[in-house]
């Protein structure tokens, strides 16, 4: 499969970035940063000009979600703060802000289908549901025994799922506020020496909502974490496991993000030992990927443009690791950045993707 690649236009901020996403109309690329803000890039400009950042956060902004029908972004930081902004504004101001929405690190945010409410999860082991309009908390769901890494709504039903560091996936009864069902992805977790490794990194549904996918790793060790990136598929109807797909070897480590392409195939990115990263297009009926790009370095997120063709992958700088001092010519310590690779693929013919 051929792919066109535009590295010269890849936005690079002066800080590392998380989770680059396209705006509703596709004119902006939005990403959370490692230092307290949300970055915006104007895709209509030749150089993908960086707009004024959305400020007001602390530390890492790993978690954010874009409203399904309005130009709104809910962002959460690693100190527990949530904010709502209009991301098209020249100088975005918070429509509301909650300083202590969670006790610490917010890991993931997901809007409901209508966008009237959204869910969050984090290091405090809770899942919470908030009203989008005013930021008022509607539910606090307790039951996970570890950091909760990801939240997701079913595409057709108002069903909320959350996945944790131990590989447990809960479907919640929102009225009774307790887990309704559990999906077992515990092979993504390993207690290695003193260190807990792995957990479910990401959840995704097939477009028809009949299959739930969990991405993560089958961990081998801690420290310089190694493991085989895997995707586990579950029947939504029975919660039975229907699929296990390996995306590489032990150096490839984590499946970091999963998305279904509008043409029906699954896309995944991996991040492994420093410098190792892959983008794969997967037809679940075939053993080999439709397409694989291994030249990217540590891919942490992917998103599909509303045009249905352009893909954004958050990567890192190859060779950004290493022991000891790395300084520039003036003796300044060199940090890392996260180039966002923008890819325009020639897509394969749509195929049946139900597992």
């Amino acid at each position, binding site marked *: 499969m051929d792919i066109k690649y535009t590295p010269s236009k890849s936005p690079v901020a002066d*800080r*590392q970035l998380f989770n680059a996403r396209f705006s509703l109309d596709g004119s902006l690329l939005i990403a959370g940063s*490692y*230092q*307290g803000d949300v970055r915006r890039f104007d895709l209509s400009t030749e150089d993908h000009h960086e707009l004024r950042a959305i400020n007001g956060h*602390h*530390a*890492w902004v*790993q978690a954010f979600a874009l409203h399904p029908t309005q130009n709104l972004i809910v962002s959460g930081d*690693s*100190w527990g703060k949530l904010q709502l902004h209009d991301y098209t504004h020249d100088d975005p101001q918070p429509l509301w802000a909650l300083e202590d929405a969670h006790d*610490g*690190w917010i890991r993931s945010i997901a809007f409901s289908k209508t966008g009237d409410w959204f869910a969050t999860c984090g*290091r405090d082991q809770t899942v919470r549901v908030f009203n989008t309009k005013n930021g008022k908390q509607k539910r606090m769901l307790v039951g996970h025994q570890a*950091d909760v890494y990801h939240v997701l709504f079913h595409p057709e039903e108002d069903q909320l799922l959350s996945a944790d*560091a131990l590989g447990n996936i809960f479907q919640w009864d929102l009225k009774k506020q307790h887990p309704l069902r559990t999906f077992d992805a515990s092979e993504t977790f390993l207690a*290695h*020496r*003193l*260190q*807990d*490794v792995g*957990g479910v990194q990401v959840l995704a549904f097939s477009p028809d909502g009949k299959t739930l996918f969990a991405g993560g790793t089958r961990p081998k060790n*801690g*420290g*310089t*974490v*190694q493991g085989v990136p895997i995707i586990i598929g579950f029947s939504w109807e029975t919660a039975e496991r229907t699929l296990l797909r390996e995306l590489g070897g032990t150096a490839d*480590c984590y499946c970091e993000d999963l998305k279904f392409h509008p043409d029906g195939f699954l896309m995944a990115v991996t*991040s*492994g*030992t*420093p*410098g190792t*990263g892959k983008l794969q297009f997967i037809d679940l009926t075939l053993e080999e990927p439709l397409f694989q790009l291994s030249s990217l*370095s*540590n891919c942490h997120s992917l998103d599909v443009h509303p045009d249905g063709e352009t893909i954004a992958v958050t*990567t*890192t*700088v*190859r060779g*950004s*690791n*290493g*022991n*000891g*001092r*790395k300084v520039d010519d003036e003796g300044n*310590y*060199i*940090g*890392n950045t996260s180039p966002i690779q923008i890819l325009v693929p020639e897509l394969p013919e749509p195929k049946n993707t139900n597992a």
Partner: protein
Amino acid sequence: MPHSKQTHSLCTPEEHTLSRRQLLGASTAAGVVGLGGLGGLVNPLIASDMSAKEKQVLFIWIDGGMSQLESWDPKPNTQFGGPFRSIPTSIPGIQVSELMPKTSQIMHKLAVDRGVSTFDNSHSAGVPRINRGDPKDRGVVYPYFGSAVANLMGPGDSGLPPYVWVKPGSGGFKYQDAGFLGPKYGALAIGEGKPPPNILLPSNIDQQQNLERNALRKFANKQYANARAKTFREAQDFVFDTAQVLMDRRTLFDTPDASDIERYGDTPLGRDMLIGRKMIEAGVRFVKVNSYGWDTHGDNFNAHASLMPRFDQAFTAVVEDLDQRGMLDHVLVIAMSEFGRTPRINGHIGRDHWPEAWSIAMTGTGIRRGAIIGETNDEGTWVTSEPHDIGHFFHTWFNALGIDSEHTEYINDGQPLPIADEECSPIQELLA
């Protein structure tokens, strides 16, 4: 892990599992290692002087490299600061990572140097260099700190070996730490919290028979020793004596109280820290407690979120216990790694090795509690105060133990050798 991977032509994998029989057998290998020199001897007057002071050391070795930014020297909301918050401590104006909530409450009992700057950024070079205090190369292998203290201060009155190493993995007699001092100053390693197997007498042997057996052994040993160097005899006697003492002190390995497990944490580190405290209480001169798994080149932040609470709980519990028993007045406690971790966050969301700017914590005898010294810049990349190398700390710790580090020498086969790098000196701000 450098310690566990060290091999020697005389050391087979089986010898790393300690049993009474194997412990006795280890003396042969240990003696051979000492061949070629008379072993290191501290001035006898100093050794006897030290033994009267009854000071001890609990040395907590965090193997692989704890991140200073996720522990003692947080730089929240900066480029390299990571996701975690900092929290106030019991010392006004001093903050530590939110991953240390318990430690934050005992900061006034600790001393922390945030201005540590060393040189080696690999484990293979850093671990031995740091453990030996990085003396100048004089053509000899310097002892690790535990062996140095065992030699300089002697075993004390407990009858227990002077240097015990509590660790995950295998146990055994680890003579390599002793360097030129000779194998009798090596470490007796307790692996996985287990006592040496077969430590009790066989049921068909009573005490009288055991005494007779030992008399026969001593007779045979005398003939064996007469034909061998002094280090052979010392090592031979040491391991037999150690085995006998451990047979007598089997209770050191009894299952701990449930309340202790709860306080220290039901983890390998909690278990080993508790054994470490028992060893200190029993009078062992130097106890090293190891924690492995800190080499977080990948997924550093989730790893520290997992690792730090275990350290926080076990470390706080042992310091509190020693304090409540009045033992911090004579026990020096040190917590450190071979280096810190890079401010830069790599693509695997990890931090690499960073000896340029990191932190060491300590408390106990001779240490000025509440002394938080040394500074790094706003992003934690470089030390902005006077940098302290490991040689400074060896001087400081020897002085905290009552040893004049600038005027005490080892005597190695007639060769006087400084016990710490003579280009360094004690860090006065850390000393009581």
